[in-house]
């Protein structure tokens, strides 16, 4: 091997790389928030008495789940303008990620809501809890507890998927790495650093969510 690694050329760009991390994280966070909203609406539509709504929701979920995110992003970014809706790369990326997240979030939320046995509502009422306390202790906390692990791994999956937004040149870590690459011509080093940054973000997030899980949701289940 005759290649000599040179990571020092990247030093002047550390701020740009950190910015990239921040952009990736904010893109993902926004998309998860929108995605949860879309997921909730999808779940309601899947359970509605109207056949039409159920068909629409099912088609949406199956389409998103069975096509690659790259094609979804390209379809939205390049396809929407011909329908009269032109979006900038960043909003288009957030829209694509949110729609993607929504299809998976519907399933996650379903797991949380269905996990609460009916008898618990009745038990809460029988114990004299106010409706607000029933909502807080019997519905929200157990529901959150059971969807929290799935939700935090969904966040990480979406963070990793957000790198694909670079293909419509939406500003985030991968796009920043690509720009640096075109000025320093050290592709391997640039992408090693970017990859490690993703790994650090994913590891930090999963560690943090495990701590939250233990602290906030740790009372006995049964």
């Amino acid at each position, binding site marked *: *091997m*005759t*290649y000599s690694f040179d990571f020092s050329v990247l030093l002047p760009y550390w701020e740009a790389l950190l910015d990239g991390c921040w952009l990736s994280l904010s893109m993902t966070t926004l998309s998860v928030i929108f995605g949860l909203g879309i997921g909730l609406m999808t779940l309601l539509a899947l359970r509605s008495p109207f056949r039409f709504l159920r068909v629409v929701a099912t088609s949406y979920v*199956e*389409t998103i*789940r*069975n*096509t*690659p*995110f*790259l*094609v*979804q992003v*390209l*379809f939205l970014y*390049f*396809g929407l303008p*011909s*329908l009269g809706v032109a979006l900038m790369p960043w909003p288009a990326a957030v829209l694509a990620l949110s729609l993607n997240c929504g299809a998976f979030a519907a399933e996650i939320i379903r797991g949380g809501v269905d996990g609460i046995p009916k008898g618990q509502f009745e038990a809460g009422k029988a114990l004299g809890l106010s409706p607000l306390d029933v909502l807080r202790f019997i519905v929200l906390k157990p529901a959150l507890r059971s969807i929290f692990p799935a939700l935090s791994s969904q966040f*990480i999956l979406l963070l*990793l*998927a957000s*790198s*694909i937004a*670079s*293909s419509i040149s939406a500003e985030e870590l*991968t796009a920043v790495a690509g720009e640096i690459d075109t000025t320093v011509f050290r*592709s*391997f080093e640039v*992408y*090693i650093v*970017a*990859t490690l940054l*993703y*790994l650090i973000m*994913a*590891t930090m997030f*999963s560690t943090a969510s495990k701590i939250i899980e233990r602290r906030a949701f740790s009372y006995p289940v049964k």
Partner: protein
Amino acid sequence: MIRDFTSSEFLAIVAGMQATILLSLIAFLGGGLGGVTIALLRTAEFPWARRIAATFIDFFQGTPLLMQLFLVYYGLPVFGYHVNIWVAAGLGLTLNASAFLGEIWRGGIQSVPRGQSEAAKALGLSYGSRMRDVVLPQALRLSLAPTVGFLVQLIKGTSLAAVIGFVELSRSAQIISSTTYKPLLAYGLAGACYFVLCFPLSRASAALERRFAARS
């Protein structure tokens, strides 16, 4: 010049779909071999083997597939290999599939009752025979549903090979979109092709899961 969407564009999509299927098969076969190795290391007696396998899995599950493909694509020449796009895309996806399948099959191996391998040990079977004849066949059957589910993820993942210039379904659609200027049609068609490949597999995976849940 803007081209029309003719039969030659349609044929390009079909050719792209063939490349997608072939690349998926290569990655699945390579990932199958790598995955068994990772799963065996992950469940080995030696702590260092488990450590290596866990690090491998964490790396590939904690970084974007796109970055992994970039690293292989730009890394191969660094180690003195001439980059063939099939090798780069195939190797990148194989490594990724090895990690995911390794983790799925680790779960399978660990859910085979311990008594099975203890009995095999008591009968004097060697490690190889114990794994090959007793544990792995049961483990693979237990993890059939998630394995088929991962195949969907893998087929969708091959689309990222387009970003390093591999002409498969997504890349064909990109090329056609820019020559015909009909993005809705080009990407819609590509999406439909992926759907045709993935939807039956998703259904099969869900059905396998239900059947397994009903039995246990």
